[in-house]
């Protein structure tokens, strides 16, 4: 598989995503500079974490206007999988490719710690390899990860089974204390209607090797890879 990892000014988890794709999972990938405008030859797109444009104005607000984002829209429109991690999630929301917005953490403080994730929707290119009931342990690192959307949107997300991950405790319960930022319905990640564009605040690329304390995040990338294989098999 060939992964594009977008690189905006002050993206800073771009290398990490590339590391996991290439060195941990053995796929090919390359950093795609935000001023480029083609994703030709790419099987999947990862919009990595970081502080694109310093998070100035609003997180992701300026990055969404970079030339590469037009290519991302087209790539997504053709059904290509796009995964936004942390700042990447924020950019996707700002770009309107995902509903809702990410606002300031309730604590008003940046939070970096491991959290537990319950996988809700298992029908998606990103959750296929996570078996029923498995609780993922993955780090977060953000100051603006509080997911907000109006009632109608939330209802629709639930109805269409588009909530991919929710913050939970070690036992899988969706408690207040397990919610690190005040996200509505403990939402940590969602996908679009077509299910090929997803975003999440936690960092699976930081939890893909045992030596870093957890390899749970790998399941998300592996799920994506095998989904792509299936897709190609069909195409062939």
């Amino acid at each position, binding site marked *: 598989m060939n992964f594009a990892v977008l690189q905006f000014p*002050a993206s800073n988890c771009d290398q990490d995503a590339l590391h996991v794709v290439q*060195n941990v999972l053995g796929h090919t990938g390359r950093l795609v500079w935000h001023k480029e405008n083609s994703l030709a030859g790419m099987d999947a797109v990862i919009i990595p974490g970081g502080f694109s444009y310093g998070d*100035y104005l609003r997180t992701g607000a300026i990055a969404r206007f970079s030339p590469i984002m037009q290519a991302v829209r087209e790539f997504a429109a053709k059904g290509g999988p796009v995964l936004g991690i942390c700042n990447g999630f924020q950019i996707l929301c700002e770009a309107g490719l995902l509903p809702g917005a990410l606002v300031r953490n309730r604590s008003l403080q940046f939070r970096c710690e491991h*959290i537990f994730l319950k996988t809700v929707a298992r029908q998606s290119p990103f959750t296929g390899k996570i078996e029923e009931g498995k609780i993922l342990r993955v780090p977060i*690192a953000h100051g603006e990860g509080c997911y907000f959307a109006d009632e109608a949107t939330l209802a629709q997300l639930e109805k269409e089974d588009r909530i991919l991950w929710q913050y939970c405790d070690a036992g899988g319960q969706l408690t207040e204390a397990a919610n690190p930022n005040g996200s509505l319905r403990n939402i940590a990640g969602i996908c679009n209607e077509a299910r090929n564009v997803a975003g999440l605040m936690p960092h699976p690329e930081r939890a893909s090797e045992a030596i870093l304390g957890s390899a749970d995040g790998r399941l998300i990338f592996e799920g994506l890879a095998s989904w792509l294989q299936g897709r190609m098999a069909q195409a062939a």
Partner: protein
Amino acid sequence: MSDPAITPELVNKHNLTPEEFDKIKGILGREPNYTELGIFSVMWSEHCSYKNTRPLLKTFPVKSPRILVGAGEENAGIVDIGDGLAIAFKIESHNHPSAVEPFQGAATGVGGIIRDIFTMGARPVCVLNSLRFGPIEGNGNAANNRRLFGGVVSGIAHYGNCFGIPTIAGEVYFDPSYEGNPLVNAFCLGVLRHEQIARGAARGEGNPVFYVGPATGRDGLAGAAFASKDLTEESAGQQRGAVQVGDPFMEKLVCEACLELLATDAVAGIQDMGAAGLTCSTCETAARAGTGIEIELSLVPQRAAGMTPYEIMLSESQERMLIIVRSGREDEVKRIFDKWDLPWARIGQVTDTGRMVVKHHGGVVADIPAKKLADEAPVYHRAASEPAYLKAVREFSLAPVPVSSDPAADLKHLIAWPGLASKNWVYRQFDHMVRDGSVVCPGSDAAVIRIKADSLPIGAAAASAVADKYIALTVDCNAAYVYLDPYEGAKIAVAEAARNLACAGAVPLGATDNLNFANPHNPELFWQLQESVRGLAEACRFFNAPVTGGNCSLYNQSPNGPIDPTPTVALAGLIEKPEHITTQWFKDEGDAVILLGDAVDEQDPLRGLGGSAWLQCARGLKTGSPPRCDLEKERQLHNALRGFIECGLIKSAHDCSDGGLAAALAECCISQQIARDTPRLIGARVDLSFGLAAAGRLDALLFGEAQSRVIVSTAPKDIVKVVERAKILGLGAAHIGTVGGAELAIKAGDWEGKWALNELHDLWWNAIARAMGDHKTIETEKARNP
């Protein structure tokens, strides 16, 4: 606007003595003009010239076969870590700016040290910090201390998180002596290949000099001079004029662009514009290369209208770099900096005159011999005399100190004492995992970071073939010890740092120190400095940790008095194999708890309670001679411990420091954090009766801070191996208990203390959040109004 006339008052205002002024006239062969006076005043400030400390710094051990760039040569030292890889690291202070504006002061401190590292051609891969504030509990001054503490922490978070570098370790202490004069020391470590080392030298006559980064404003005018004065309302007031504001976004772009440019070898020399900005970077690069440099100020990008040459030369606007480019290669600078949308300007060239010539619209506004300006600052051998307070300190005895009536309660107070309590309120605000290298995160004795191919600057030859490396890092200084015995206290700062490395399984590679002291003109305060350096130098030599660089911050005193002398020491160590990486918390039920080292130091009349946390926290006394450190014994302990770890005998290792055995044992039981709100608590049952006689009193046994002690846990089958081998190595070793259960139980003679782990954990984990006004309520509130 015309320059003011050079009067004695003006010279004095610039912090220059009449003798220094005469020396300047000697160098120039005439009176300096206003701009030149400003240039000399910053370059000859303590911060840039080390005029009061250079003789002391010369006594540090600075050599080892691993040293590639030594202390004083460049912006940071560089140490070989094998396989053609090297690390560059350095610590710097930003104390006074943080007192004036905690958020921006701390943020720009982080920015400054990161620039010092990528200036060397290294990719910055992690930062640490060492912080000191007044007490944060209660009312009155505490409110302001909390403001400073909170501001500094969010400033560090703001800069480091946005830049995308893990803040992977640090230390925080609270003491009244830092009220109004907090300490903010920032450390950065970078990685590079030997052949990638860049030099801060203006080499090659005719080579163009480029300015890259944001435009120059009136920010932090003469900050270096400000840092070289006592902190008074007036000096702070001046500084408020234009506080430096950090832009981590800009720094990230400047860093990436510089590393990309360095990979083209179009660069002849490079230096950041830190303290004393354009002034320091131009004259230092020329001095290092033995060349001259000529710049035209009208070409310097400017943010404010009508800036004078004086202001442009002394501005400390952040995120700027000076780059000397090989002539003919100018286009590569343009190409790369345009790609990153960064401002750049060609402002001058290298000459062979040995002079720093500054022009403004063609007219010469400064013409100074670069080497004399950079290297020939006056050097002072200050008078030193032992402080009077030490007499009482030495005479202090435990006799009048009531024995603890309730040690069980004392331990609870101790671990909830902000200085000892968990610092998660601080490090959970720092991204300590970005870059996928954080193997041991904040919360254990030493942090461990993995160096891999993408830790290197781009263009590293065969980067993919890089073998992973594991570097352990720690920064330490118990300033109460240093206050009570500067020599012994400084030794202990190094010994504790080295012990932390050993507990992680690492061998020291090198040290960097930040000498935070008060006014050197006061002989008693200078004596503290001199004795501390003696202790640091001796200990660094002993642990084979050459000093690769550091920083001096003097004049740390507010109107209410001097700070405790605080020589913070950061140590970097190498861990041979990933399987040797060791953490401090107990692992498995049934494991044996073993104390390496002697439970009690019988040579110490105060049995380790002098200057101890217990004496301060439970008795409100900061006095008594601190524990002594027998370096030979300490080294034996480290070697033995590393040996055991490398044989796979050790499951956990935790060094005993503040709070003594009892606090260390508690931390072994409660310090493993699985995830948010999810600690892993594991109890232990321990018997210390064997030490009671030697300790004389129970509180000394439990809370005494004798040095050279480590608590390890091993599988039951390995007990004998560890204890016997330790004895053979002439090292005290006692099997003191067993891991397991839901409580910590410590027995000593007929006394037994029991603590519920969840209670201990709550006290320890939440103490600082409570002192700061816990955010929990808001934190878990939904994103919508009820």
